């Protein structure tokens, strides 16, 4: 009983600032400017289907690369001595102390045709390479900004893997590769699914990364939604419809990965 009372402030908060606005978004998505019911906003989304699929494609690529990069890092950190773990984690989180916009802005000055990277390569008479204003730069921006969200849940699961489990496997003659696939990965499944969600969800809806690093030719669905509310094509109804479509996709992905997590818990 007591625990329920303690939750009241948060529930009130959630109703006022999450449930009601969500209802408004749904209301907007299915009405015209005069308040009549319509499907036209959802159908108008067709024009932006390519952008939507591009956003999903980019964020899937970013999530997969994040996962591949984060797995060894998280594992190595979790195997360190306690004191060192704290330091290493701090290094992982360190970039997040700096404002998100500034971090992305910094990549602009690195990747530009006259940026630091091209100038460094220029010392060896290489380049200049076209590093910015393409899809690669956008995906790089996503990976850079969201990789801590992958490392942290992986790390927190992996620290719980007992060293003796791995030693036991080694004792029984398990090869290094099989330790990874049969022990470490299955035991950190929960962390993987959390990490995938925490990276995929913000990257599929990001808008400023694509604007700054994509040069305005790689617009993602987040950019288009932003333009409906604050930009030149002011149309909150269409923007809401887009937000709903995006939300459905996110919920789908989340329940997909929750599935794996819970199956693991059952076994």
């Amino acid at each position: 009983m007591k625990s329920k009372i303690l939750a009241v402030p948060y529930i009130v908060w959630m109703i006022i600032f999450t449930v009601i606005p969500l209802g408004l978004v749904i209301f907007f998505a299915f009405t015209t400017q005069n308040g009549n019911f319509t499907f036209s906003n959802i159908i108008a989304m067709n024009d932006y289907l390519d952008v939507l699929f591009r956003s999903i494609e980019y964020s899937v690529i970013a999530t997969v690369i994040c996962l591949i990069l984060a797995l060894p890092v998280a594992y190595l950190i979790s195997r360190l001595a306690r004191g060192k773990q704290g330091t290493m984690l701090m290094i992982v989180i360190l970039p997040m102390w700096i404002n998100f916009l500034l971090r992305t802005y910094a990549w602009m000055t690195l990747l530009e045709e006259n940026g630091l990277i091209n100038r460094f390569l220029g010392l060896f008479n290489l380049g200049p390479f076209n590093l910015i204003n393409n899809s690669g730069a956008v995906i790089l921006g996503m990976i850079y900004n969201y990789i801590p969200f992958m490392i942290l849940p992986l790390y927190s699961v992996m620290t719980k893997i007992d060293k003796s489990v791995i030693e036991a496997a080694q004792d029984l003659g398990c090869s290094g590769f099989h330790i990874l696939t049969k022990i470490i990965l299955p035991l950190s499944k929960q962390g993987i699914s959390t990490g995938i969600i925490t990276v995929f969800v913000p990257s599929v809806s990001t808008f400023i990364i694509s604007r700054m690093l994509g040069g305005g030719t790689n617009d993602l669905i987040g950019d288009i939604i932003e333009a409906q509310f604050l930009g030149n094509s002011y149309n909150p109804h269409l923007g809401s419809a887009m937000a709903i479509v995006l939300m459905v996709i996110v919920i789908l992905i989340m329940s997909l990965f929750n599935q794996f997590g819970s199956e693991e818990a059952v076994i």
Partner: protein
Amino acid sequence: MKKNFVLLITLLLMLALFSGCPRNNIHSSSDFSAVNNAENKSNSNTVSMENSKNSSQSVNSINRDDVNMDTILTTLDKSMLSEYDYSKLKNQNVTLNVCNWGEYMAVNQDDYFDVNKEFEKLTGIKVNYKTFATNEELYSKLKSGGGDYDIVIPSDYMISKMIKEGLIQKLDFDNIPNFSYIDKKFVGLEYDPENEYSVPYTWGIVCIVYNKKMVKKEITGWCDLWDDANDNNILMFNNPRDAFGIALTYLGYSQNTEDKRELEEAASTLKQQKNLVQAYVMDEIFDKIGGESSAIAPYYAGDVQTMIDENPNLDFCIPKEGTNKFVDAACIPTAAKNKEAAEMYINFLNEVQVAYANCDYLCYSTPHTGVYSLFDEKTKANPLRCPPDDYLNEKTEVFINLSDETNAYTQELWNQIKIEKSKSPWLVPAFLLISIALTFFLNIRRSRKKKQDIF
């Protein structure tokens, strides 16, 4: 061996960093103006004798002699104020909410005239200053009732849209006597024909900024933005109104056309240009042009002046085909709570000294005759700050508010340029349904499984 290799890489990286340092190509416009101010100030303080000589040399500007040019950019000179009762709302705890473009007023700069602080000191009214990034953002703030502002400074076409929708109210010009300073050329323009709603704040034209070292040919006008010689070095506006304005002028049509055929033609020209364009940008232009990553771009005159002052390799071109003239003006929203204080603020903005300090900070052109007569000869001769009258009359156009259909159609064309379209209209709804069904299926299966496990 490995360690040595790592050391070598670190060393090289550091080297590269150092080689990058002296270039120092990142300056926000505010940084620049702060530096500029400091320079101005040291000049005027240490060489004040020379300065007074200089100002006496500029014979035709009588005003310049009457005014203390040493301190005009630092503190308010009460003797320069017009006759106006600025103290009538003192001690009444009035707060004024001002919403202006970002980086569009002299505020919060060290050792420089601060419009809001001086206004607060003079009147006892507290100013709550906020900024917006696009006209549409301001529009959505006013339209949704979220913005509780007493003063807004939108651009021409947005003003006429706001008038049409009743978002801004008529001004009482008896409370704004300094309106008499406004040049008659800027009174009663298309967006506010009777000039009942707005007081012009700044104006300017859209022109071309380019890098003298990077372009291969002489730059003359918009045609150079479609020239293969500048392939992958062109930046373009990332908003449909300005982009279509340029394309329409390039084709010889009116920027305010509502003719679908002309708009379609402009769209196909823009599509052609897309292969040459390096990026579609707005404010990112400062880094890309300033850092010499791109060679040529259209932008607003005041900002072009700022970029040129920063990088001597840059130059400007006033397009021969004609261009867009924009006017930003102060207005009072219908929902404003302190109309009287707001009118006092507008009047204060048009005090000669305040307008001069603002203008000096912004580098935009001014509609204020008092400020114009304070300009030195160099500024008056600069076509970026003071474009010649003939050109303005014959070659420039002010945006007016277009019909909703035209706006929607332009937006549609713009989307076609930037993103490809798909055909079937039922793809998204079908996709949505499948997604929702799948989500339900997954969740139900999961909860069933859980139940099974419990038993």
